[in-house]
């Protein structure tokens, strides 16, 4: 029985010891170096540790 079915039956998953509730966490950011403002504006962040560029999808050619 999946979790949605349990909700539909109005039964909380926490009643079932086999179910673990998920926990979200975010590591605390620490400042080290920052980009130059012009570089930062192009990259969308001033912080190198937050820069997560999307990989190039060969089927997506708008930016090329």
């Amino acid at each position, binding site marked *: 029985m999946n979790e949605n079915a349990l909700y539909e039956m109005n039964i909380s998953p926490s009643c079932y010891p086999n179910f673990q509730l998920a926990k979200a966490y975010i590591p605390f*950011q620490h*400042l080290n170096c*920052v980009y*130059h*403002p*012009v570089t*930062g*504006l192009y990259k969308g*962040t*001033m*912080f190198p540790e937050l820069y997560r560029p999307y990989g190039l999808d060969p089927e997506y050619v708008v930016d090329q």
Partner: protein
Amino acid sequence: MKNEREELLKCIMAFDFAAIEMNLYLDTHPFDMCAINLHNYYVTHGKALRDQYERLYGPITANSPHSRYPWKWIESPWPWEQQ
């Protein structure tokens, strides 16, 4: 001439962006002295660049303190008028 104007405008945008980034960081890290110094530098330098731009090329916003006679705000180019 036009290139210098555009470059200066891009620089202002970059420093405004940098100041907002430090602003957001400092909201969750209010005791980070290094970040405060960076924030203050970006704001001060951005303000100086803005003043320089407005003296040279006219107001960026209508409430600029640098309008000469006649009223400069209505002069071209507008941001969407790429020349």
